[in-house]
Structures are given as structure tokens and as C-alpha cells.
């Protein structure tokens, strides 16, 4: 069937075509003249909002998107200005960023690293976005952060709680406002000791991926430091929906506290299973059985309904705080969408304003200028109290909230009550802390 009768002429033709094919791409090696990636030249500047619109964290993503749209409105001087009025930096005038009107594009991360990178890439390459914001998973945050570093744009992380994001996977172009697993452990441990005593025996169920691992590591370390004993740590698949088979062994393990290192749908299901086994009514080692959920969110609390009553956990921010920044944000969010914002929404809103403010103060959209403006930046008035963007790892340091499932909620939205506002000193750690060691920021990359 094959007819390979190579002639001299045929050979020459083949060679010429192949040669031309190989030579072709070398024409395009010259780099373009722009000073940095996607330098905005017109009257507008484009931001990319990359959030999960499908998949297990879709609810969080939808809420983030609402907050991001609100932030764009406020930056462009529409609406009531929100936190622009309470923000300690007064660089933002409500006339866009550096006089350019803010526009945005949206994308779906699907809570998958690959899809998130594809979506972010199209925002950068096609739509000319200078900053990517959003995301509801640490895996995605780390992946997109790496991409932004390579492409030369700024990444303002959304909800990402793993230590790695500003630990071993930190990048010069990436910034995180949200708190992390270490901070959750440091904030929760004293409250747990006070409420449950120092001689508890804990059993961990952990979502089997990087966030779960760092969460488990952090909470084990901080509870053991105050005298608790860890009976067992069990990894559960992220895709699991029924946790009965993981809950059953807890009863006979000699443990008297169950720690659920789960988030989103996982947490709703595992907590529901635990309640079905009536764990909270049990008595083990002569003490009442307790459940702890280190990372809480309003959307999870709503999903778990009655089951979260009395369960302790930690949060980055809650709409029930009473400072001016929170009030201003909750007011404009509530008036526009008819519900209070979640803490993932708040972190995306704050990140968008912080980016815009950094551009104003730097006088440029150049990522290196923005990085310089954000590093070591101290601010207030965005809802979390006085906050520092630490230069060494691009992590925000601020107070952390310890919350409890509300025993007597009066509305569908006050499902959580604030137990304690852990001061920032207590959750601060050295940049070379073992849980965060192993990575390097590198240098800022302006691309192009």
C-alpha cells in the first residue's frame, strides 16, 4: 500500500518544505516594544476575575464575583463608594485607576489547576488583563500564581488558605490577603484549650490534598503544643460525599474531639454524617464529645444548617464585625444584592481595592511598581482592622476570628457568632517558619 519511491527531485522538494517549516518560527523571536505585559494604552484598564463558576466551590465563586463587580463600581465612582470612604489610603479618587476606567473579564476556574490556568491565560493573552483576582482553592491559587509570575501580571489571590500559597510556592507577583492554616491553628488553640480543657484526645479527618495536609499539620502542631494528644489522622478523598465509614471508627478510637479538616461540600457532608451518628451527645473519657471545623465560611454554615450549632472554627472576616470598613462594605453589598457578603467575597473585594490603590500610589500599572507599593504596606479600613502586607512573603497579617455555630440564629444569615478576635501578634510567625520554608519569592516579573 505504501508507495515510497523517493526521487532526487522529490527529496529536494521535501527538504525545502521541511527547511522552510523549521525556519518559520525564528521570524517571530523579536520581543515587542511595550514596557510590561498588557500595558494599558487606551482609556480603560482590564482586570481579570477568575473564579469557580462550576464544581464544588461554585457558591463561593458566585459570591466572589458579586464582590468583584461591586469593587469595580466603587473604583469607577459609581454606587456609594463602599470602603473607598473608610480605607486608610486616600489615593483612590473614584475615577478608575490612574484615570483609566476599570473594565473586567470573567472566567471559570472549574476548581481545576489546568482549567484555571487556561482561563487566566486567555484573560492575559486575549483580553489584556493586567491583574488576575479570585479563586476558591489553594491548588488553583498556586497554579495561577505561578502562571501570573511567568506572564508578568499581578495575582491577587482570593480564598486560599493553605500555607503553601505564601510558603513554599510563594511568588513575587502574587499576594494573599486571606489568612492561612497556620493562623487558624494559632488562633483556635487557646480557645479550644479554654473551652474543652488541655487534656483532650483529637481525631482528624482531612481532605486529601495540599490544603488539607497543611491544615492538619498546623492544627495538630498547635493543639499538641498546649497538651492535646492526636489519636489518629485519616485522609479522605476530595470527591467523597459520604463519610459514614470514616466517622464510625471515631467512636471506638478513644478520641473525644473530632477535627474536620474539610471545606465546602466536603465539610457539609462530613459534619452531617457526624451529627447523624449523634457524636455530640456522646461522652468519651468522661468528657462531652466535641467537633471542630478549623476553616469556616458562611456558605458552608448555611449548607450544614442545624448541624453547625456550637461547632467551633476560624474565619478571615465576618459581616457581623462592627468596624467602619465592615459596615461600609456590608451596607453597599447588602443594598445591591440583598444579602450580607461571605468572607471569600470580602477578601476579593479588598484585594481589588488594594491592587487599585497600589497602582495609584506607584503611579503605574507596571507589576514591579505595584509589588514595591504593596510590600510592607500598612493599611486599615477594609474590615479586618490594621493590616500589614509583609514584604518577605506577600502575606497579610491581621486579626483572625474564632467563630461558633450560632445556637439561636435570628435570621438565615447570622448562622455564626464571633467568639473571639484573636490579635494579630498571636498569629504572626517568622517568614522562615518550618511550615512555610522551602520556597523563594524570586524577583518581580514585568513580562514583555
Amino acid at each position: 500500500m505504501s508507495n515510497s519511491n523517493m526521487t532526487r527531485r522529490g527529496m529536494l522538494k521535501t527538504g525545502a518544505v521541511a527547511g522552510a517549516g523549521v525556519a518559520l518560527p525564528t521570524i517571530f523571536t523579536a520581543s515587542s516594544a511595550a514596557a510590561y505585559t498588557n500595558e494599558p494604552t487606551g482609556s480603560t484598564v482590564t482586570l481579570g476575575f477568575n473564579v469557580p463558576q462550576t464544581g464544588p466551590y461554585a457558591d463561593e465563586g458566585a459570591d466572589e464575583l458579586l464582590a468583584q463587580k461591586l469593587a469595580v463600581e466603587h473604583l469607577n465612582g459609581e454606587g456609594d463608594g463602599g470602603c473607598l470612604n473608610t480605607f486608610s489610603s486616600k489615593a483612590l479618587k473614584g475615577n478608575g485607576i490612574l484615570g483609566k476606567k476599570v473594565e473586567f473579564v470573567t472566567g471559570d476556574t472549574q476548581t481545576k489547576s489546568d482549567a484555571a490556568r487556561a482561563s487566566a491565560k486567555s484573560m492575559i493573552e486575549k483580553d489584556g488583563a493586567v491583574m488576575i483576582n479570585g479563586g476558591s482553592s489553594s491548588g488553583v491559587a498556586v497554579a495561577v500564581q505561578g502562571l501570573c509570575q511567568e506572564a508578568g501580571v499581578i495575582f491577587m489571590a482570593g480564598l486560599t488558605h493553605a500555607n503553601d500559597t505564601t510558603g513554599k510556592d510563594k511568588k513575587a507577583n502574587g499576594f494573599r490577603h486571606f489568612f492561612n492554616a497556620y493562623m487558624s491553628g494559632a488562633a483556635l488553640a487557646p480557645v479550644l484549650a479554654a473551652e474543652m480543657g488541655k487534656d483532650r484526645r483529637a481525631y482528624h479527618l482531612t481532605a486529601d490534598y495540599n490544603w488539607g495536609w497543611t491544615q492538619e499539620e498546623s492544627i495538630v502542631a498547635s493543639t499538641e503544643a498546649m497538651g492535646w494528644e492526636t489519636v489518629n489522622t485519616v485522609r479522605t478523598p476530595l470527591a467523597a460525599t459520604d463519610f459514614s465509614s470514616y466517622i464510625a471508627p471515631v467512636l471506638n478510637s478513644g478520641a473525644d474531639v473530632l477535627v474536620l479538616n474539610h471545606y465546602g461540600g466536603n465539610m457539609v457532608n462530613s459534619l452531617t454524617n457526624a451529627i447523624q451518628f449523634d457524636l455530640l451527645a456522646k461522652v468519651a473519657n468522661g468528657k462531652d464529645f466535641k467537633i471542630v471545623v478549623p476553616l469556616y465560611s458562611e456558605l458552608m454554615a448555611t449548607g450544614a444548617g442545624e448541624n453547625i450549632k456550637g461547632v467551633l472554627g476560624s474565619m478571615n472576616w465576618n459581616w457581623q464585625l462592627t468596624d467602619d470598613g465592615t459596615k461600609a462594605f456590608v451596607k453597599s453589598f447588602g443594598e445591591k444584592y440583598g444579602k450580607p457578603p461571605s468572607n471569600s467575597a470580602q477578601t476579593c473585594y479588598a484585594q481589588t481595592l488594594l491592587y487599585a490603590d497600589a497602582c495609584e500610589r506607584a503611579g503605574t500599572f507596571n507589576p514591579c511598581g505595584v509589588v514595591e507599593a504593596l510590600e510592607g504596606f500598612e493599611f486599615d479600613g477594609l474590615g479586618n482592622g490594621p493590616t500589614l502586607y509583609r514584604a518577605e512573603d506577600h502575606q497579610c497579617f491581621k486579626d483572625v476570628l474564632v467563630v461558633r455555630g450560632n445556637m439561636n440564629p435570628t435570621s438565615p444569615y447570622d448562622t455564626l457568632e464571633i467568639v473571639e478576635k484573636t490579635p494579630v501578634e498571636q498569629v504572626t510567625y517568622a517568614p522562615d517558619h518550618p511550615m512555610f520554608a522551602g520556597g523563594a519569592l524570586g524577583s518581580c516579573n514585568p513580562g514583555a
Partner: protein
Amino acid sequence: MFGLDKKDTSLLMIVAVLTMFAPFILNPFPTDSGLAQFNAGYPDLMQRFVIFGIFAIGFNILFGLTGYLSFGHAAFLGIGSYSAVWMFKLLSMNIIPAIILSVIVSGLFAVVIGYVSLRRSGIYFSILTLAFAQMCYNMAYSVLGNPASSYNLTNGETGLQLLLDDPRVLGVSATADGSIPVTNLFGLEMRGSETIEMGAWSFSFSAGYYVSAIIMLLSFYIAIRVFRSPFGMMLRAVKCNQNRMNFTGLSTRPYTLAAFVISGMYAGLAGGLMACMDPLAGAERMQWTASGEVVLMTILGGAGTLIGPVLGAGAIKYMENIFSKINDTVLHGWFSFLPDGLEDFVVFVIHPFVGKGWHLTLGLVFMAVVIFLPGGLVEGGQRIMNLIKRRKKSDDDAAETQPAAE
């Protein structure tokens, strides 16, 4: 030319011209117009078109020729990506060793998985390949991916990434300005691109795209040769009636295994190329949905045809990346000329089919193709061609043979 007959040569030339001029063809709308939303000529998506084209061409060698429906081909894609990223981490940022290793490693996996799976045919074969792929996925996702353990091959859910302290024996760990070096082909940076402005249009030419496109053309050429070879004929015979071949005393298993390994290596090549364009390998690349996607691509384009899988891959990637980005704001922008109530209504009707609902559109298109064009997009093309030919012919007939009686 190239040892092909005239028809195949022209097909290869058409594909070559289309891929070389893709930056123009895919950007038909001026940058500032409302229709720019539908432009697909940006480097990342063009790279995806050709890379998934390679994946689908390889899948078609197995499915199109032998009829064995593998539901686990994404495993090889992922294995190829991981191999390539490891090459970038350990050896150098040149893409050649990375691509070679990814093809070899995925080939080895294909030998093992194929040897076991091909003991059965039909639905059992599909299930076996699916099981193997899910095993690979779960291994990559958690067992081999725990950063705390000493055998962290895949870095779990985060995906395998390049770091500043990777050894890179034949290259540098970090560039002079403290960033991770870029994947390149003897100095030609894969992410390098050049944008040319022509009036209101802008076209971007990416080095990575042209490298992938040339590799795609080579793969396409090899696929044509496989299709036209005695080996390919044997594979078709397997599809027709494997029992009859066995009764004549022919052992078909070496042929099917060879086809399986070749298509596995194609998938590995595609995976390796993906890592070359964007040096990250994530476990979800191996998930069963990704395996299903390549089946969709092949069937949508036309299984068993040469060009079909490439068209299918393009169609699906286009929808995934373009339709998914049309949000309500964009829709309101388009229909703002309508009166308020009507505008909201139109947006409400279209909303479920775009943005996060792009899967729905894909599903409808897929159903339409399977029902009305069982041969895929290629059959659609052929029907149109036939229609034109027939009309032409009947015109000619009408002109010439008017008086003649049938």
C-alpha cells in the same frame, strides 16, 4: 510528495496551510468590535487546538482503525506532561529532551496497560482502560503527590511546577534576575510572541504555536502513512471482524497492541507539548472526563477519518474557551439595542447556553451531529461538497444533454 498519493498530499497541504495561517484565520474580527469576543487567535488557544489535535489524531489510530474504544487515554496525556515537567526540573529547559522522555514513558505505560486491557474487547476493554486511567489519576492525585513524603512525584492537587531551586543539570536553576527560566527550543522561547497590527485587526504569532503546529503536521503525516500502510489495513480488518481473522490463524493481538502503544505515544507527545507550552502538570489532566473529551472530539469530527479528529478537537476547545467567557454583561452589551424588557428576556433565554452553561451547548451540538451526521463534521463537509458538485453537474447536464432522452 512524501510518499503519499495525490489526494493525501493535497489533504496534508490543506492542513499545513490552515495551521500556518491560523493566526489570521482565527482572528477574523477587528479587535475593538463586539464580535472580537469570538476571536480565537490568541497563543494559548491556538496551541490547545493543535495539541489536542495531536491527542485526537493518536486516539483515532486506535479507535478509528481498530474500533477499540479506550476510555482511559487521558492517563497517557498526564504521564507525558509529568515526564516533560520532570525533564525541565532535572535536565534543562530545552523542550526536545522533555518531548522525547514524555513519548517514551507514555509508550511504556501503554505497553503495560495495553497488554492487560487488550485481552478483552468491546465494553470490557473500555472498562479496563477506564479503571487503569482512574488508578493513574488517583495515584497522581494523592498517593504519589504528598509533598510531605519522600516520593512526591506529582505534587498532588496543586500540580507539578517548576521551582527556583530545581537542579536543571544542563541549564540554570534561576536566571540572572532571579526568575525561573523559560521553556525553549535551542533558545527560541516558547512563550515568545509577536503581535502585528493591521488597521483594526491585530494578529499574534507565537513561537510556541508554530513549534506545536509543525509537530502536529509531522504527527498528521505519520498518521496518514499508518492509515495507508498494510499495518493500517490489518487494523481495519480487526475492526471489521476480529473473529474471522483469528479463525484464519492470524494473531491480531500484536497488531492491536501496536496500535494501542502508538496512540498512547501520541497522547504522551500531546501531554509533553502541553507542558512545554505551560510548564505545569496537574492530575485532573488524567481524570476520566478528560478521557471522555477525546472520545467526543473524535466522534464529533468523524471517527476513522484523517482530518475529523483535528476538527473535533478544534470545535470543542473553541466552545470551552470562547463560549464559557460570554457572561451576562457581554450579553447585555450585545442586546442593548432592544427595549429593556425584551433585552432582559433575550439575555434570560441565551444565558443557560453560554458562560458556565457551555457544556449544554456542547451537548446539543454533539447530539445534533450524532443524530444527523453520524460521520461527524467530516460527513457534513462531504455532504456540502457533494451538493455543490451535484448542482454543478446537473447544471452542466442541463446545458449539454437537454435534447437527449434517458
